[in-house]
């Protein structure tokens, strides 16, 4: 993982809405959506504003090593889910202004809630609607079976 890179939200496939205590993130590409609470929501905001993951990990490690590991796992899961992507070196990005909003909580050793994932809608995106989905049909993107003569 390139935790020293700057990341951005993977728009347009990924859309996030901030409700203060919770950030809800939706991946339009696969129908999965996510909940980030407390310090995890702060970390999302910080990453979206251009703070590097490594800086946030450093704050957490200053409190305790296991907290740094928790931040690493959280950021890694965001990357693995395709919610954020690294900016290349050539891409300009203004440095974030001000301290990371998660800094105080991490330095104080506050726990990092795991990112909660929901995939109950994914089958509306991916499934064969007639055979696999039994409620309130959605929009399938399943490709045709092999053509018949």
């Amino acid at each position: 993982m390139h935790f020293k890179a700057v990341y951005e939200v993977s728009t347009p496939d990924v859309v996030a809405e901030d409700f203060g205590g919770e950030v809800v993130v939706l991946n339009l590409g696969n129908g999965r959506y996510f909940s980030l609470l407390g310090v995890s929501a702060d970390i999302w905001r910080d990453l979206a504003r251009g703070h590097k993951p490594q800086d946030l990990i450093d704050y957490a490690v200053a409190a305790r090593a296991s907290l740094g590991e928790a931040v690493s796992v959280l950021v890694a899961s965001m990357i693995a889910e395709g919610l954020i992507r690294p900016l290349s070196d050539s891409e300009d990005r203004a440095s974030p202004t001000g301290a990371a909003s998660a800094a105080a909580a991490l330095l104080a050793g506050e726990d990092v809630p795991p990112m909660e994932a929901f995939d109950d809608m994914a089958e509306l995106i991916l499934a064969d609607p007639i055979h696999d989905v039994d409620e309130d049909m959605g929009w399938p993107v399943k490709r045709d079976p092999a053509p018949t003569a």
Partner: protein
Amino acid sequence: MPAVRIDIANLPLFAQDLIGRTANLPRSSLHLRKLSIFGLSIDAWFSDPAYADLCARNIAQTPAGEGAVEITLFLIDAQSTGSPAPARWGEDVFDRAAFNEALASAGLHGAYLHDPRVWQFFSPAARTGVQMIREPGATPDWETGGPLRVFLHWAVAMNGARLCHAATLGHDGKGVLLSGAGGSGKSGTTLAGIAGGLTTVGDDYCLLTQGDGDGASAYPLYRILKQDPAGVARALGPVAASRFGALNWQGKYEIHAPFLHRSPFVDRLAIKALLLPRVAHAARSELRPVSAGAAMRAFAPSSVFQLPDDETQGIQFAARLCRHLPCYELFLSEDAEDIAGTIKHFIEELPE
């Protein structure tokens, strides 16, 4: 229409060609149904009279009013019109974003259902939509419970409304949204409320508008309720189902207003709260406040992912609604009268 396989490159041309050719079909061979819904005056031309009757029966008819937007839809099957069979999607991967982007470049909306091979296109500029299927009845199974859903989604957007996956209950013009994925208890709660004297604009889908700070309103899309036999028995009594006909593909009755003792449908509800039903088998139904984020997770995905496009706007719309409305979880008992009474009392206590 050429029998070709469609890909991203030829999609816009295929869509424009299909719209043009279909609009030129002789009207004498088609069946016209005039639909009036949420400021839209729709001339819907069908090749299959049974499909025409189904849509006219199940879609809510509300006064279009002055200045109605006039829409023309062609709901056509290849067999009846002597057209070539609908083309297949020709790429290994169906990239929904690329599909929508290609159509948007031509000023169009569209969707493709792979297994039934259904094409749907809509031109906002021409105010014209086309659906092409293989033969009469070759629409997806869910079409009876929500006919022309995608076209209505595209058309009402022209009037500033959104099609949402939510049920509603109301009393004296005030109402609540009931949100959640399939199986969460929306339809059963709606039927229980109706049995207890409440009104509705729909038990599965509705149209929503949001004003500038003055709240949301819900409008009907369909005049049909859906519920499984157990839910019907709970809400309406053990013999009620005898008048509702056969079960649909989901194992549910499709219930029309004339089969109820009084029509529960109203033309508008001022939405004052968002409720998330939970099948809890509780002794008494109970409402507990829930965060806007939790409401968002229940409301947005099930609405947004059931439509073929416009997801980002749908998410932003849902987020504004969840921030604006008080949100509650509704832990359900199994007693329809108790459920209806709990919701009615809750609505009565909501501010105007």
